[in-house]
């Protein structure tokens, strides 16, 4: 056990400086308040909204991909019927190779159609733009916020996390270029952007919190100011 831990354990009882106020004891002893169902309803509403957005997104992506697959099926069926009308009433053995010959080029056409640019790329580009703008906005805000007193190294944790997320984003993009787009990769990309926004938000909050504290405790003359380079 470390010395600091020992010290704190020994003086734990003496450190109970924040006693709960008398109002709290009144609340605890009184009948349950209406607050809890409200919280539950809020949570359920938020959860439902999130679920609806997610379902719409997944359905949209599936719809776009399925639509293409169904488009190719009728063309195969039509071309398949044409040679059948030319088949004379001869032996079945002759018919089989003719049908096969006609099917092969049709299958190639279907494959060629599939190789057309996937609409999910357009979808991905659009949300990349939107998220990118949000991330840049947050970054500009943070760069413009003066930071007082603390060592800039204090924020290295945030920088490291952002750097890691940039790497994650790069590897997902690389994977898309290499293997093509997929729903999983799109979701991964969305997650990275959301995480970036979360970290930037936490960083902004941490800076604000620290600035308030330092400005309250330190005389204005001895305040050190710097700007984060992220």
């Amino acid at each position, binding site marked *: 056990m*470390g*010395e*600091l*831990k020992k*010290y704190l354990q020994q003086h734990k009882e003496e450190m109970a400086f924040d006693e*709960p106020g008398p109002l*709290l004891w009144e609340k*605890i002893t009184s009948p349950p308040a209406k607050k809890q169902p409200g919280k539950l309803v809020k949570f359920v509403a938020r959860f439902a909204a999130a679920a609806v957005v997610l379902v719409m997104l997944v359905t949209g992506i599936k719809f776009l991909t399925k639509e293409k697959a169904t488009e190719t099926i009728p063309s195969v069926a039509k071309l398949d019927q044409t040679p059948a009308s030319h088949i004379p009433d001869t032996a079945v053995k002759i018919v089989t190779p003719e049908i096969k010959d006609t099917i092969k080029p049709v299958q190639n056409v279907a494959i060629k159609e599939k190789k057309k640019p996937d609409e999910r790329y357009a979808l991905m580009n659009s949300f990349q733009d939107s998220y990118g703008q949000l991330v840049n906005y947050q970054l500009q805000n943070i760069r413009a916020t003066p930071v007082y007193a603390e060592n800039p190294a204090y924020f290295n944790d945030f920088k490291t996390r952002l750097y890691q997320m940039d790497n994650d984003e790069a590897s997902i993009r690389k994977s898309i270029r290499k293997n093509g787009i997929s729903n999983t990769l799109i979701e991964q990309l969305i997650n990275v952007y959301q995480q970036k926004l*979360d970290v930037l938000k936490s*960083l902004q909050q941490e800076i604000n919190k620290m600035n308030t504290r330092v400005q309250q405790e330190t005389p204005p003359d001895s305040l050190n100011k710097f700007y984060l380079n992220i």
Partner: protein
Amino acid sequence: MTGNYSNAEDILQEAFMTAFKNLVQLKDPDSFGGWLKRIVVNECIRHGKNGFAWSEWSEEQTDTLADEATEWWSTVSLEVLHKEIKKLPDGCRQVFVLYAMEDYSHRDIATDLGVSESTSKSQYHRARKLLRERINIQIAIHG
């Protein structure tokens, strides 16, 4: 653990509600204090589980922690120490309080907070480092 008086009051109230609802589960009335405390700590963990920024542990940090010779924490009053603990950033404050004051192991903290053991260690180290720096500033300003 919350670093905020009003949050602490809310959590305490919720913990009492939980305790009253589940009072039938308490088999030994003598252990009520410990049982309630565990509920309060769990509520604190649940309250602050999301939105923390975590950093990883490195070997260099282990060395600096082991080399710490001076008992800087005893150079200020318990009140100042308590104040500075409350001002620590959310994630590392929870880890610090759980480890140093509530005597949790890093493994238990990792399980409860849903992070890795090394993250728990690094957050504890970060808390110590920040506390030391801030207490030194306090001494420099107020003597």
